[in-house]
């Protein structure tokens, strides 16, 4: 190591600290509040859309923001949303994989729509069909579609986030659209 080098070492064994003491060494409380206000609904809805389980989505949201609280200071400024979505997708993946047996035995959960009470929903059924069809996509397709079409991320951002080549993301999106087309037809026939 060069003399005076910028070696960073965080010793977790410095004793018990209160949350307020830790905030300065982690993420500022005000910054956390801002990010929570800005993205908590996105994280919650993304998790719910992925898992179709409200309780699990709330658990994911909680886990994601606890991680933000404790490790958020390491996030590159301007990349907060990408970080939050990456952690959200990873949490959802873990839960989805962990619950495979339950899905096999009890069947996959159905996405219940939770519209705002004061909103007038036009063409509700068509929109509901689209939502359910996206939710029925295989997990790898679903997360790619959600990140691009729901969260508005570009292919390169998604590739970076999921640690996959851009070609793989493009291919997944293409196959997801084909699969979605089939699922939408099935939804219509099921009416």
């Amino acid at each position, binding site marked *: 190591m060069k003399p005076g080098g910028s070696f960073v070492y965080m010793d*977790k064994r410095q004793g018990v600290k209160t949350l307020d003491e830790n905030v300065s060494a982690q993420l500022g409380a005000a910054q956390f509040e801002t990010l929570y206000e800005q993205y908590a*609904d996105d994280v919650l809805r993304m998790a719910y*859309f992925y898992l179709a389980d409200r309780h699990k989505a709330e658990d994911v949201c*909680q886990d994601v923001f606890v991680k933000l*609280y404790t490790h958020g200071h390491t996030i590159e400024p301007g990349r907060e949303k990408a970080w939050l979505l990456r952690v959200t997708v*990873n949490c959802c*993946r873990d839960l989805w994989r962990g619950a495979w047996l339950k899905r096999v035995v009890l069947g996959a959960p159905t996405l219940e729509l*939770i519209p705002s*009470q004061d909103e007038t929903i036009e063409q509700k059924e068509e929109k509901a069909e689209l939502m359910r069809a996206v939710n029925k996509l295989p997990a790898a397709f679903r997360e790619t579609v959600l990140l691009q079409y729901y969260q508005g991320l570009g292919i390169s951002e998604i590739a970076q986030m999921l*640690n996959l080549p851009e070609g793989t993301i493009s291919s997944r999106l293409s196959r997801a659209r084909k699969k979605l087309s089939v699922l939408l037809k099935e939804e219509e026939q099921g009416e």
Partner: protein
Amino acid sequence: MNDLKSLDQLGPIANEMLGGLHADKRMRLAIRRAAEANAAPARRPLRRLVPAACCAALALMCVGVTAARLGGNAPEANPSVMLAAEPAVMAIDTIAAGDGSDAAAAGTLVADLGGNAMVRRAEADGESLFAAGEGDIPLVTVNGAVYQMLATPKDVGGALLGGQVGTVQHHDAQPSLAASDALSAGLSNVAAEGTAIYAISGLAETTAVAAEVDGSMRVFQRVSYAGRGPGGLGLEDTFSVRGQVKRLELSGVGTLTGDAANAAIDVLLDHAVLKSADATARRQTLTVTLDSGLRLQLGVSGDTLCGCGGWSCPEFFEAFEAAL
């Protein structure tokens, strides 16, 4: 009639159809409470540090006396200088490296502490979780502690990453084992210079860390290497898996899961006594699968478990056998 054109409107549609779903104040309060609980690290019981420190001091004395006998004129002031002056080649046996596919290439490192290293073949009965290097083990160092790369997972999920604990200050494909300065800083022979080294959620950074290697976030487990052992740390410091074990597999013996696995690990962490600062050769392995899905491993030789240091614990093997 629904078509794929509406997919472009998925954002507004989803926000409309899920508009009643909000992360409310109740959830924010729960997050603050959970963050507070996570922010408070457990106090380390002194009763485990005292015997560990005594054992470390005893081991250091033994090494010093041996070196003085063999070398005759070895300097006395600094134990590390005494070791460096010792001309005899000292074998430091690593955990047999690599996953199943790499098993044939798994080797035992033979190093003289003057700075040369080579690999000799070794056989391993238990499947090793450690990645193999062509010469030196694939490693990163954090604050002087050495961590060896695991063969799996190939890419640890972001959800498992903790805060940054170090940075690779120096990349060297063939690091000198005698360069204590390089080992003390962030050194790696696989991760590029400037790479951030992260803690792993649920594990002390003295147990395992993660760093990006060739575009993938890889896990590194703390090991003894080049005379760098546990220092004054106890086994639990370098293997902090208490209460989070899903599965415990002792190769050639059997497997414990759930509560039985956790109970056996409790016995190990409560009773292990440092036998040697350097890990020794072993054919058996103890593979620990954590609730997070991560797997860590200790080598086994007789009643000794080897990770960062060799730890004698006959009580653990008795408890393991009884629980089978």
